[in-house]
């Protein structure tokens, strides 16, 4: 019996603009098992990023419940959610993923430092992860000295270095050429298969959608369909 990692029920989030009230999420129910490789598909404004933000504890729903890795995310304070993210989650965003004043090694090591790992160990681990994502020799480069694809790889290395329960990726290939995008998705899929890390990826890139093992399609803040590929 697979273990449930994410359990969401009735997640609703409204955004208000003047007198206009729009449901970005409209009663989302969701169960995702540990080790899943899920792609959230849908057009812009369908609610993919909002759902991803909810799952990452970056935003709070107006109503509903959300339990990840057995912990009620909505009952936590903002400091508690930050600590939860540090211990359980990894993030890869569309762009500007890295802290620009830190080198590739320091970016990866930063989260390990926040977890309390000593300097020697975290730098060794950071170098190992950079090597795993094909960035051996780039350890001392700062973000502005790397291409978009290389930066995304550093972000993946950082997301995985803490061995999180869940990696959330929001349009990770949006700013990459198709070859680099495919390479990145191949890497993420490989890590999912080898290490059993759970991935939830929001994208409308056909190549990303094609890599899904579970494809959830969203429209107008609702789940339109969910299927195992």
């Amino acid at each position, binding site marked *: 019996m697979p273990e449930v990692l994410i359990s969401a029920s009735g997640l609703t989030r409204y955004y208000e603009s003047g007198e206009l009230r729009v449901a970005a999420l409209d009663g989302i129910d969701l169960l995702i098992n540990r080790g899943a490789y899920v792609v959230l598909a849908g057009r812009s404004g369908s609610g993919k990023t*909002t759902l991803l*933000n909810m799952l*990452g504890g*970056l*935003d709070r729903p107006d109503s509903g419940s959300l339990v990840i890795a057995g912990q009620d995310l909505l009952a936590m304070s*903002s*400091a508690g959610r*930050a*600590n*939860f*993210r*540090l*211990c359980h*989650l990894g*993030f890869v*965003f569309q762009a*500007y*993923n*890295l*802290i*620009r*004043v*830190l080198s590739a090694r320091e970016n990866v090591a*930063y*989260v390990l*430092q*926040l977890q*309390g790992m*000593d*300097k020697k160990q975290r730098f060794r681990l950071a170098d190992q992860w950079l090597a795993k994502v094909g960035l051996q020799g780039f350890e001392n480069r700062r973000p502005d000295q790397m291409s978009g694809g290389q930066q995304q790889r550093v972000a993946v290395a*950082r997301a995985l270095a803490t061995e999180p329960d869940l990696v959330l990726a929001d349009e990770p290939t949006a700013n990459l050429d198709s070859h680099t995008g495919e390479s990145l998705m191949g890497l993420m899929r490989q890590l999912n298969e080898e290490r059993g890390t759970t991935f939830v990826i929001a994208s409308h890139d056909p190549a990303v959608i094609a890599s899904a093992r579970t494809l959830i399609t969203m429209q107008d803040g609702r789940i339109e369909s969910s299927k195992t590929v």
Partner: protein
Amino acid sequence: MDNLSIYLKLGWRNLWLHPLRTTLTAVALGIGIAALTFLSAMDDGWMQQIKTNFALTMTGHIQIHADGFEDSRKLAQRIVDPQAMMKAIGNISGIQTMARRVRVSGLASSAGANAGAFIYGVEPEAEQRLSRLATFISAGAWLPAGDKRAAVLGDGLADRLGIGIGDKLVLMAAVPGGDIASEVFRVRGLIHSGVMDVDDMSVIVPLTTAQQWLGIGQAVTDIVIRADSFERVTPLAENLKNALSGQGMEVLRWFDIDPMAQQWADFADAYTWIVLLIVIIVVLAEVLNTMLMSMHERVREFGLMSALGVAPAQVFAMVVWETVILVFIGGLSGFTIGGGLSLWYGEYGIDLSQFAIAFSFMYMDPVIHPLLQADSILRILGASLFGAIIAGLIPAWKASKLEPASALREL
């Protein structure tokens, strides 16, 4: 410590993302703090001069009188047995030296002129250890030992009386019974101290002659004390009051004796606080703007950090540390420049001789020597740090309160 190292690393590198902005802010801060350090040193320098000149030219650090003498200035209020009193207080810690004086107001007359005068009967030997009067001799000599008719007077008073070294001087003053008594002296020396009260009004004669002339036996009006340091004056005065309790004596510190000196001391304190307030305002104005700009440019980065698991309190601390680093850079350069100028001018002085007459009213020397004092430096340092933290609190609070999801939408 590990957390501090990352705060310092991020703070330092973030500041140098905009080297021109950081440099301009640091330079402006540096100039401000340099100027304020120098001003503070000037203030400490001339306050030290005022205190020293006031206390050591004539007044002493502490005076003991019969109760009420300072207000009445009448010989009826006198210390009848000063030697017994000096023996009784001689072992109190903090006294460097002390001497007896008789002080009366009277009339000084020469063959051709009269003038009001402050007449002091002093112990010629002891007075040289107590005050600087003997060092101000501009013509002739200090009261010669054994010359009972010798007088030393201010050069301004001598000019008014039209007399010089070797000339005869007649002094008249009221004795305890109310009669007027006079005595003849011979001018042996002139003094020029730069202090108007001394130069234009004072006549100094031997104590024993003054006691005989005024008919007060062994009595004196003042026991004047020089303390080990200015810092010991107040505790020493308290100890003296306790020791003389019930004997009908008043114990006055140098700033109790002259309200102007007290006001100068109060003004110096107020000036110090004004300087500190300016330090805080300078730091706030310079740094707050820079840090707010920096914070607004990095909203997405703060969102990213929050997503990575950096707690709001850590974001807060990071921004505050960045502010402290910026102030440290500016402050260090400012202290170096301001401190260097203060030390240089402290050694060589700032010559303001063209204002010498105005300065003499305030017991100031025409050459100012700025004085770098540890407590003043620490106060400016503390004010800079306080300003930095206050300036950092607003952007730090804003950064720590950012909603990660909305911050991540910023570009």
